[in-house]
């Protein structure tokens, strides 16, 4: 190796050692289960798409537009929900997704993909236009993440217990779309006052 190469290599090493490591904390995206917090996740993900390849519902997507997010996976829960199989967490080479056992108890404790936000004015039992408990029926943690309250058996979501898999969002009737899983860190709107249904 010549002197110029050595100086260049040293300069590169020094600049890489002193460069400030920034974190993108403002990325509002629903990440696969086991994902590191926003910021560390984008730093660790190399966009190898193994997680998306093994996903049985193909709900893990990559943005197709020019953006810094182009090579990081996110979930399109409105299209397909996550079935909590945890396969994606097992294949990640850089631990951007930390391995999680496919066990309901472990998942309930470890996984937080998003927060459930219910628009009561759109929800059939809440606005009194119908009987529906689809979200409750598909929820992997019924009575914990979603409870049925009142005479109408209207759903009440418990943010602390919800893993954010989106099965409710997928099941919610097309005309209603009352329950949406929003990315972590979303400001929760104040719940609207419960309206009385038709007599």
């Amino acid at each position: 190796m010549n002197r110029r190469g050595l100086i260049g290599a040293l300069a590169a090493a020094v600049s890489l050692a002193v460069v400030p490591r920034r974190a993108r904390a403002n990325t509002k995206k629903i990440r696969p289960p086991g994902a590191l917090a926003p910021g560390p996740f984008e730093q660790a993900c190399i966009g190898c798409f193994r997680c998306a390849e093994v996903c049985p519902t193909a709900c893990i997507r990559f943005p197709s537009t020019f953006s810094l997010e182009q090579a990081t996976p996110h979930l399109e829960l409105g299209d397909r929900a996550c079935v909590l199989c945890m396969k994606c967490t097992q294949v990640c080479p850089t631990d951007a997704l930390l391995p999680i056992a496919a066990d309901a108890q472990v998942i309930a404790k470890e996984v937080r993909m998003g927060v459930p936000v219910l628009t009561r004015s759109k929800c059939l039992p809440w606005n009194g236009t119908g009987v529906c408990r689809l979200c409750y029926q598909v929820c992997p943690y019924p009575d914990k993440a979603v409870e049925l309250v009142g005479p109408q058996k209207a759903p009440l979501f418990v943010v602390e217990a919800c893993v954010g898999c989106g099965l409710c969002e997928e099941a919610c009737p097309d005309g209603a779309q009352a329950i949406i899983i929003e990315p972590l860190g979303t400001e929760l709107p104040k719940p609207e006052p419960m309206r009385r249904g038709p007599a």
Partner: protein
Amino acid sequence: MARRPLQPLDITLRYGRGYQLTRRLFLAFSVALTFGLPLIHLRAVSAEGAGLADDSPWARLIGWLPVVDVPFVGAPTSIVLFGIELVDPLEWLGVTLHRGLSWGMVWTLLPGLLLVVLLGRFFCGWACPYLPILAASNASRWFLSRLGVPIKDVKVPRLTARVAMVGVLLGSALLGTQLLPLVYPPAIIGREVFRALFFGSLGAGAFVVLGAFLFDTFVSRAGFCRSLCPGGAMFSTLGALSPVRIHRDIPKCTDCTICDVVCNLGQLPMTDKLDGGCERCGRCIASCPTKALTWKLGTPSVLRMPHEKPGT
């Protein structure tokens, strides 16, 4: 009309047929994995009934494939083969700069690093899924020159690739996201092939690959691989540790320049000017009319003194 400059496609690869065949089969295997793995996984996904639930023609076509459980998962730049992790050293470095070193990450790097230190920049000549596109680019250049269209071959300094490599790492640190998968052709090709097979669409990454193809075709021969690809720069840097070298038998050499012309990466075997940038494709050996070039194990190029004759 001025004489057309000699092009790689004018040169016959006469010797070392076994080596070239092995290399091409390996490349075919790599490309087959790039397309095949998403297909196999897509089949498994649709067999579970959730992935391709629609009755589209594509879903029906996929339905013909057998459901197999392969021990492979991943992309050209980060793959698991029979439980062995092969991760691109530069992608690894990008993550490690952010997240720090852990034993898990060391084990992830080791198999890939070992291959690169032994065999040098072989990925670029044996496995990169951009190679078929580069071959198409070289063929286009040859065709255009046959038609009498003047083609440019701007010599971008190879240092540019090293600058791009460090720039990608610095940019990743400053922006807080990995930039390499956005600009590295094998990573992009893997992702876009996956997208095309799973969702029937292409993303913005396709434009980067198209840009690389146009650059290689109209501006500089293999210019992207030579002087822009950050991953290639990393392989060159590590490849300087490899003991596998091209040896020139000086009495046999007739200074015909064929080996220098056939090399995609601007190595100059005729004057023994070879470094870590050699992709071990062996085309110089295969094209030498007097069989003056051979493989040899010797001092890695990084340990050689500048005044030392590389042929010795």
